[in-house]
């Protein structure tokens, strides 16, 4: 009987301490990750996948020895919830040389990471970031970086009712003048160390087709194809799991980012320059996510070039095959991404 009571007591405790997803958000370096923290017996746990991806560091889990490594440090307090590993926020902060802060009002958790103490980042290898500069608010504009952001001639909001628009507008640039010069190659070239979403693209290298924080590299050389109307060049390709620290790929998916340039090589103006789709090795077709991409459709005059990046969301197991441009009254233009 005593054993039964004990068992029931332990069972009730287990039920009581079942992981609870708190409605508190995780902020990383003051940016909302869109992820919730996990609260168990007063301890906050944070998702390692998000943390590692945002900090561009790596994690390793050795189920045999039940050991978890974050940024080179062993984490003792971690749990597996629904297939995802959550680590104690305190331990994670210690491992990454960061700090924690709770918003008193919302109780959201703020994880402030010191990136210089994150050991295995590609960012660290390539970035030349400096400390934030203090802005001098008193000196006039000069060749240095100080800038007077104050004015003694500021207007008062008290006398607004008597003010009416009278002045003429200023504008940034005169329009209707043809854009001057520039060779085609100038327009086509995209810096190979382009970055997106907080995860720097490697210089002339591509992370292997795995999670972005794992080791291993592969090279990507620009690919070009053309038909009678357009020449399309893919200058870089990368895979990431988060766009702008905000948009996570759905479970089981990843993002593929293609840096693309498109030139009108025909003698006519091309008003609608077509739509890009991505084809994987199993011939499955994906539309690009316009809301996450930066490829603004533009009317292209003869010789005109447009470029930007396209973001596709595909299953984690999928491998790229082709980028396809579908324009009006033309056969699809295929750019082979592999060979």
């Amino acid at each position: 009987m005593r054993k039964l009571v004990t068992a029931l007591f332990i069972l009730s405790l287990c039920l009581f301490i079942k992981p609870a997803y708190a409605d508190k958000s995780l902020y990383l370096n003051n940016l909302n990750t869109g992820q919730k923290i996990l609260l168990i017996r007063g301890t906050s746990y944070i998702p390692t996948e998000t943390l590692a991806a945002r900090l561009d560091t790596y994690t390793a889990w050795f189920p045999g020895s039940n050991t978890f490594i974050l940024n080179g440090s062993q984490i003792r307090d971690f749990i597996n919830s629904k297939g995802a590993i959550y680590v104690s926020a305190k331990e994670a902060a210690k491992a990454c040389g960061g700090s924690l802060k709770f918003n008193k009002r919302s109780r959201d958790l703020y994880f402030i990471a010191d990136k210089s103490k994150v050991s295995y980042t590609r960012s660290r290898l390539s970035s030349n970031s400096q400390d934030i500069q203090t802005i001098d608010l008193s000196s006039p504009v000069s060749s240095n970086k100080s800038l007077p952001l104050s004015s003694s001639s500021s207007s008062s909001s008290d006398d607004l009712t008597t003010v009416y628009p009278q002045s003429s507008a200023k504008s940034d640039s005169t329009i209707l003048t043809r854009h001057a010069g520039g060779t085609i190659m100038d327009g086509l070239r995209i810096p190979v160390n382009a970055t997106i979403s907080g995860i720097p693209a490697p210089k002339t290298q591509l992370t292997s087709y795995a999670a972005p924080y794992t080791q291993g590299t592969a090279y990507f050389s620009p690919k070009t194809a053309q038909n009678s109307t357009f020449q399309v060049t893919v200058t870089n390709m990368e895979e990431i799991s988060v766009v702008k620290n905000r948009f996570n790929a759905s479970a089981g998916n990843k993002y593929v980012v293609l840096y693309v340039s498109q030139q009108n090589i025909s003698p006519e103006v091309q008003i609608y320059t077509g739509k890009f789709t991505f084809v994987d090795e199993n011939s499955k077709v994906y539309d690009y996510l316009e809301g996450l991409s930066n490829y603004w459709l533009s009317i292209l005059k003869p010789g005109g070039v447009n470029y930007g990046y396209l973001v596709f969301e595909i299953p984690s197991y999928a491998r790229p095959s082709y980028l396809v441009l579908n324009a009006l009254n033309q056969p699809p233009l295929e750019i082979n991404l592999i060979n």
Partner: protein
Amino acid sequence: MIKKISAFLLCFVLFTVIPNFVWAAEKVSIEMWHAMKYEKKDAIDELVKKFMKENPDISVTPKAMLSPDVRLYGNDYSFLYRKIIQGLAENNPPDVAQVYENWTTQFVEINAITPFSHFDGSEAMSKKELDDFFPIFRNASSYDGVMWTMPFNKSIYVLYYNKDLLDKSGVKIPKTWDDLKSAAIKISEDSDIYGIAFSPTVDLLGHIIYSNKGWFISDNKAVFNDDIGVASLNYWNALVNHDKAGEATFNSYQEFLKGNAAFIIETTSRIGSLKNECKFNYGITLLPTGRSQAYQCAGTNLAIFSKDEAKKLAAWKLIKFFARKENNIELSIKTGYLPTRYSAYNSPEYQKFLASYPGYKVGIAALNYGITQPRISAWESIRGFVNDAVFDAISGNLDSKDALNKAADYSNGLLKGFK
């Protein structure tokens, strides 16, 4: 005999003259594409009905081109733009559509839209009517002195503040960027909330650049990475990462409503909803000044895409109708956008509205120093590059200078190749 002649004439009238009248009275049908929803869409629909009642020979179909999926198609305006250029390429454009100034540049360059000067005689707008538009809007719609688009849904950026939080900390309404920073830090320390919440976007950078006499593009070259641009980005960067008084978020309006931030920078289009949703005392004031005053305008204009002359005239009548004083007042009151002309602003109806919504006075005052973003064709793409730069700097991925240099490299390549 007379009966036979009468019957003949009757038949003649029935089968020839009357059908001609019927044919002559056949309606001209036009489409108006826009990206408005909710009460703004309702306001447009109402005005279109009123227009058709006044012009029984014209049938207008308003079509809201709204993005069905923001991730897949972008926001409503990028969806609208895609639809317009697809329509142009397929020779099936709208007759009237909302356009931004930099879109207009592209459409003017390929002769896709019709200028005001196309309409003359009794249909033309008089100089008096044209002079009635606020200069900032008239100029934004003009190319080489000719208006090509009709100012439509307009707003301007202002500063919203939580008066209760300012009072609690004894902070005065900021007049300069320096004031704003000090106020944000003080409130952040006193109340353990963010002093200011803002979206890390190109517009954020523009507030300080323009108010310090800087530019994004000059002589077809990106200059937003100059000293002014870098200092501007450093200002926001420091507020977030150094002073811990700023929150970079894409939900700044909601953060403000929840009392989690004392200041936000938003356009005047928020004034109406704020009055209904805000639970604390708040105020609206001009954005802080730098070396000068300059406030970015937002919103679109109406352009005529029709190729057929009858449709073109019908479209012209429609956009003139929208701009007419009484309709401009109605649209402004129902949608919360700013009036576009003096006569609408000065009208008793609008002044009465202002008594309930005095915040719009701030917006009108800001128009004195209104500024429009670059109208170059490549601007939408460049906006995206600068958005990435602002985000990369504030999230600590890149130094401000490096982030802006990268965006400038991209932009200059595009400016050279964009013909």
